[in-house]
């Protein structure tokens, strides 16, 4: 069955295409990307009208938490994939801090099987660097790679011991596995619940200084230099981190980095009123840090935008601020917040889409993120202008923990296609 996407503005950051084109799909693969494609028998094809919309390679979110196995009441692979599809993502990467931790091929196989049978988008698991995320002994990365992991990370926690982290990076290098670093010095962030700054002083809440992140960013950059293996810094939140990464890249050290939309949109003032939906790790920082993160995206220091989608239920969030869990969901709002950067002239549309397509694909060595003939037909079609108001009750995610509720944004997903099948809008 042929599927023809007509009249959309096709933007493929990998090839530099930015033109009004049609896209022809058949058998789950892209067949042609040309202006005004004419088929011998139009009635045999399904037509999707993309007038006024942007057509892009399926978006990739390389940092999510899907909570299955272990905390299925917060999110499952199935519900997370629905949230992803609604957010325009055709591929998502899920972190290893499940329960049990994804530190063995058995758990990896479980996740892959659940993804295969219940997910409507591509799901790629990340394996842990250390067993149980305890930072002591290395996991069987070779076995896990065979089972399907695309990278290793202890995300959720840091490997505190530099010696262990060095070995972890070297061992991952053996299997050509990307290493994703959650940078946090626990001895500095100890007991902190928000950014250490003026707002934390006003609220009497214990703070997490920017240095807690920056110390580990510096360390992991140096370990990349030492081992010769690239590291990818997750959820960059501070100006100091951006500075360190920019400097490292200039000196030729193999490092890439990502940030999440909340770090270029919100400041620590979102916590005022003790709003637990704004409690996240790394914490929301100051306006100066937001500016630096935006600049880091603009000048390429930060390669990727990833949601760090972290679902939590009322059990974890309707508590005193000190006791609430860290994390916010983001699959369904990432695109809109990213488009705001385009509207505010921080990024061009192509640059923005690059952070969500070809860059994460390249870092993870996935054959995705491109819109060329022969590639898998993972495609996102969105209207960049359409305004909407974020409504937590309308999220497809099982969890509702977003501080963006009520925010006016623009940019809605019209269609999400995975392997040529329209997965969003959902068939009712």
């Amino acid at each position: 069955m042929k599927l023809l996407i007509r009249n959309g503005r096709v933007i493929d950051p990998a090839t530099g295409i930015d033109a009004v084109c049609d896209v022809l799909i058949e058998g789950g693969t892209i067949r042609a990307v040309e202006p005004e494609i004419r088929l011998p028998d139009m009635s045999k094809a399904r037509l999707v009208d993309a007038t006024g919309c942007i057509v892009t390679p399926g978006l990739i979110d390389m940092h999510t938490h899907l909570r299955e196995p272990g905390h299925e009441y917060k999110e499952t692979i199935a519900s997370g994939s629905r949230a992803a599809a609604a957010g325009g993502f055709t591929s998502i990467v899920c972190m290893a801090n499940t329960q049990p931790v994804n530190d063995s091929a058995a758990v990896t196989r479980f996740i892959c099987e659940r993804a295969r049978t219940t997910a409507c988008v591509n799901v790629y698991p990340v394996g842990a660097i250390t067993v149980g995320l305890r930072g002591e002994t290395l996991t069987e990365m070779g076995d896990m790679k065979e089972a399907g992991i695309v990278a290793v990370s202890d995300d959720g926690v840091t490997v505190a011991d530099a010696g262990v982290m060095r070995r972890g990076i070297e061992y991952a290098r053996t299997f050509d596995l990307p290493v994703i670093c959650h940078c946090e010095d626990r001895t500095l962030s100890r007991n902190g619940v928000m950014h250490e700054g003026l707002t934390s002083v006003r609220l009497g809440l214990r703070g997490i200084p920017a240095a807690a992140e920056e110390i580990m960013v510096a360390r992991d950059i140096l370990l990349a230099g030492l081992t010769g293996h690239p590291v990818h810094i997750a959820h960059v939140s501070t100006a100091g981190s951006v500075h360190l990464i920019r400097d490292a890249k200039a000196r030729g050290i193999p490092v890439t980095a990502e940030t999440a939309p909340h770090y270029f949109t919100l400041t620590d003032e979102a916590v005022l009123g003790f709003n637990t939906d704004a409690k996240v790790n790394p914490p929301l920082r100051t306006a100066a840090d937001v500016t630096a993160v935006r600049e880091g995206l603009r000048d390429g220091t930060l390669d990727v935008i990833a949601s760090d989608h972290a679902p939590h239920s009322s059990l974890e969030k309707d508590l005193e601020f000190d006791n609430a869990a860290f994390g916010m969901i983001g699959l369904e709002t990432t695109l809109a917040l990213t488009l705001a950067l385009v509207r505010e002239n921080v990024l061009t549309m192509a640059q923005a889409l690059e952070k969500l397509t070809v860059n994460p694909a390249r870092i993870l060595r996935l054959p995705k993120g491109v819109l060329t003939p022969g590639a898998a037909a993972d495609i996102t079609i969105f209207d960049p202008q359409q305004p909407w108001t974020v409504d937590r009750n309308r999220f497809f995610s099982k969890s509702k923990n977003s501080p963006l509720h009520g925010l006016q944004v623009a940019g809605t997903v019209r269609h999400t296609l995975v392997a040529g099948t329209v997965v969003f809008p959902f068939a009712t």
Partner: protein
Amino acid sequence: MELRHKNLLGIEDLSPEEISLILETASSMKEVSSRDIKKVPTLRGKTVINLFFEPSTRTRTSFEIAGKRLSADVINISSSSSSVVKGETLEDTGKNLQAMNPDLIVVRHPSPGAPHILARTLNASIINAGDGAHEHPTQALLDAYTIQEKKGKLQGLTVTIVGDITHSRVARSNIFLLKKMGAIVRVSGPRTMVPPFIESLGVTYVPELREAIRDTDVIMMLRIQLERQNQSFFPSIREYARCFGLSLPMLEHARKDVVIMHPGPVNRGVELSPEVLNAPYTIILDQVANGVAVRMALMYLLIGR
């Protein structure tokens, strides 16, 4: 004028006019406490619940006496006897209490923002009697009342607050209040216990105590939690007392008409030497007396109609 609030969660929510109203009302309440029959029928039939998740004899007693002098029915719940121990959330505890229709809940809790959760959930008025390191508004109000009683005003006075500012809700509330009322505020203490952004609140950090108390009108000593020694905030009690405690020799650097305050309980020999503690210019007991009057004033203004 009125206090147009349902709750008192923090000094940050009050305007200078509202603070003046509370202090003026406290004056009238103080007179009630000096009578033979220390009772007026104003809050007759109102139910006041003291919900304390942190132990406290003096603050709770102060609120209890305040409520009873206004003829309210006062009930004390402390966390060891509540279902919190059984794992019930604060919100559920609140809803259970709400079902019994209280008029006012006075809450003290170790987590900042806990009273705000109750304020969102309940119809009853909420008074924050201390939420973690965030605020302790009634303490700041009674401190302000006491200062005004002794010095005649707040505006233009210099007040020095000494001690563990970072972890102190008394310090925070006092800083907010004194700044709103036009006082000049200095803080002193080891750098480990004075947050780096404190000057953005409009106060000056003076590390050396003898400089901090020079030419000041009021010295407010904060209680130090001795356990913080083990968390590397200060090396020893001996050093703390020598450098940041008030003794007679240290007070040589202060003016003769200075007054000394402390929210209590005092660590004798640490924040204040016994001689200073018993001196006439140390007005801790006035603070306690005024605490009842200020709390009566607040109860009246919040639920007295």
